[in-house]
């Protein structure tokens, strides 16, 4: 009997193909919008989390200042010194490496090209802690680090921007008034964190950076790699207590520095993306609702148009429940057709936009299933009222209807 209703429904729908198509458009758009939003949202979330984890998931970052004050910006909290990093390396257990750094955006010139580039003062510990590999050339020599030589190592994107296809090694970049020679290039990591490519970077020996760029002894960011993921929490609290001691912070006083864990950042970014995706999906869901009302409308019209048919069916022995089933199945089939179209269009749209934005295209079968299931539910919810109306018609009246 169900199969029968299904066949009848398809028959009725194909009889008014254009009208059916217009009817399901609402559901189609709703489902397509939900799928597009959620798929893109998940793609973006995945991208953010991979790029964050490419920074190193066992990574901790210590910076002076508090959450509200920007590092290096506020004058109240004293900057770190290289000695702080050395103390962490000596005294904290279960760490794989420590790297003191400072960074600035500096106008950089090579030939006729002039652009802002992120310049970081580092020592050779930076490469292992941040998981960078030298692609060509070499790391800094001990001599360069000690003397503050004007050598630099540049990221793959920076090399492309300034030197195009030319070999970057041995070329000269001018940072402020300082000319520095490229002694190495970094292996490309790909991906971007919040818009900035992490491959667009110039590394200077920390001492050079401090003397020539900032003119201070400051270290604004200390990276610490924990030996394992399990150790992160312990390492974080050890660093905190060590730094409190070194900075003479009394018991009960607030920290004037922060030690953050990349995982916290990753989960925070993830939850922000989740909220955004949810909001977008909710907006898209509203159009599903509107689509459902469209279906109810057309089913009511259909019931009125087919009053005579309903009368015939009732007269020759159809029970009310059978007529109800017929129209309900019709509404559900209608909305499911809309749902299928919506899934297809939504995925195609998401794939297109994902390719355009360079976001990974992630199909979540659960979301597809849910959007589809919801469209069927819309059919049941909004098809029930017209179907009940049909089932309760008086056969005599219905037969008299022209």
């Amino acid at each position: 009997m169900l199969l029968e209703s299904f066949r009848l429904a398809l028959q009725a729908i194909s009889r008014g193909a254009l009208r059916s198509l217009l009817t399901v458009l609402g559901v189609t758009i709703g489902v397509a919008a939900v799928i597009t939003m959620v798929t893109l949202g998940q793609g973006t979330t995945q991208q953010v989390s991979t790029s964050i984890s490419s920074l190193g998931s066992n990574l901790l970052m210590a910076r002076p200042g508090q959450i509200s004050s920007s590092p290096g910006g506020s004058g109240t909290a004293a900057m770190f010194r290289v000695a702080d990093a050395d103390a962490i390396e000596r005294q904290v257990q279960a760490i794989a490496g420590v790297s003191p750094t400072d960074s600035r955006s500096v106008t950089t010139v090579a030939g006729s090209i002039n652009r802002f580039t992120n310049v970081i003062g580092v020592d050779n510990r930076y490469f292992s802690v941040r998981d960078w590999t030298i692609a060509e050339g070499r790391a800094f020599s001990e001599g360069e680090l000690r003397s503050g030589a004007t050598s630099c190592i540049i990221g793959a994107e920076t090399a492309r921007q300034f030197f195009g296809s030319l070999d970057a090694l041995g070329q000269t970049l001018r940072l402020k008034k300082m000319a520095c020679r490229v002694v190495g290039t970094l292996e490309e990591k790909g991906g971007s964190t919040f818009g900035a490519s992490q491959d667009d970077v110039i590394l200077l020996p920390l001492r050079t950076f401090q003397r020539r760029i900032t003119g201070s002894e400051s270290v604004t960011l200390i990276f610490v790699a924990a030996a394992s993921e399990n150790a992160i929490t312990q390492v974080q609290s050890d660093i905190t207590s060590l730094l409190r001691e070194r900075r003479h912070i009394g018991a009960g006083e607030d920290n004037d520095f922060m030690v953050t864990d990349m995982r916290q950042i990753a989960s925070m970014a993830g939850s922000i993306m989740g909220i955004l995706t949810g909001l977008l999906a909710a907006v898209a869901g509203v159009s599903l609702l509107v689509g459902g009302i469209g279906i109810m409308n057309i089913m009511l019209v259909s019931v009125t148009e087919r009053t005579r048919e309903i009368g015939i069916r009732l007269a020759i022995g159809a029970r009310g429940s059978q007529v109800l089933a017929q129209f309900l199945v019709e509404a559900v089939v209608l909305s499911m057709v809309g749902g299928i179209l919506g899934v297809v269009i939504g995925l195609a749209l998401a794939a297109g936009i994902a390719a355009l934005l360079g976001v990974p295209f992630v199909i979540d079968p659960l979301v597809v299933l849910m959007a589809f299931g919801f469209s069927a539910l819309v059919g049941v919810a909004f098809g029930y009222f017209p179907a009940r109306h049909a089932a309760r018609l008086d056969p005599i009246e219905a037969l008299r209807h022209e």
Partner: protein
Amino acid sequence: MRAITKVYGAGEAELHALDGLDLAIGRGEFVAMMGPSGSGKSTAMNIMGYLDTPTEGAYLFDGVPVEHASREQRTLLRRNFLGFVFQGYNLLPGSSALENVELPLAYRGTGRGERRRLALRALDRVGLGGRAHHLPSELSGGQQQRVAIARAIVTRPALLLADEPTGNLDSARAREIMALLVELNRDDGITIVMVTHEPDMAEYCRRQVHLADGRIDGMAIAGAGHAA
């Protein structure tokens, strides 16, 4: 089927479509109900067909009182014991002759193969075996009415109700339809009650009941073979 008494008195200001009608129809009868429009013949038909309920009075079907049957019960009674033939054929336009005839069986839950077999047999019975897959719009009026008759008899009903079955047909087609009904009554033993206002058609029936103002105005007995 015996002892049918129907009294239908609608409320105070209402029209008394049927006003204390008493009618008994025996098993195997072929009865014509005649009368001017407004005489209550259609109302009587609707009550007999369980499409409507009497306001007052009793309706015994096969000795069982059914006048207080619920909507659902009446549907089941209709489905199991009755066949309908209408003036306007009332076939589903989008379905073939075969599908139309299968429909009552489908609602009874008869299996697909059995349904097809019974429907084809019914179509054969009305002489339309070769047109099973035509749409109603591809058939003439007489043929459409034959499909409707096939649909009515496919469930082997105890009672066939025909409401002006020849009303839309020319006299030659009408006579063919009447001949078919007579045959079904005689050979298959189906009780038939037919509403008509054409005396010519009523001649085919063995008994004629004349209604006026919701009451029986007169009766006449005729043999199916001889003229009355």
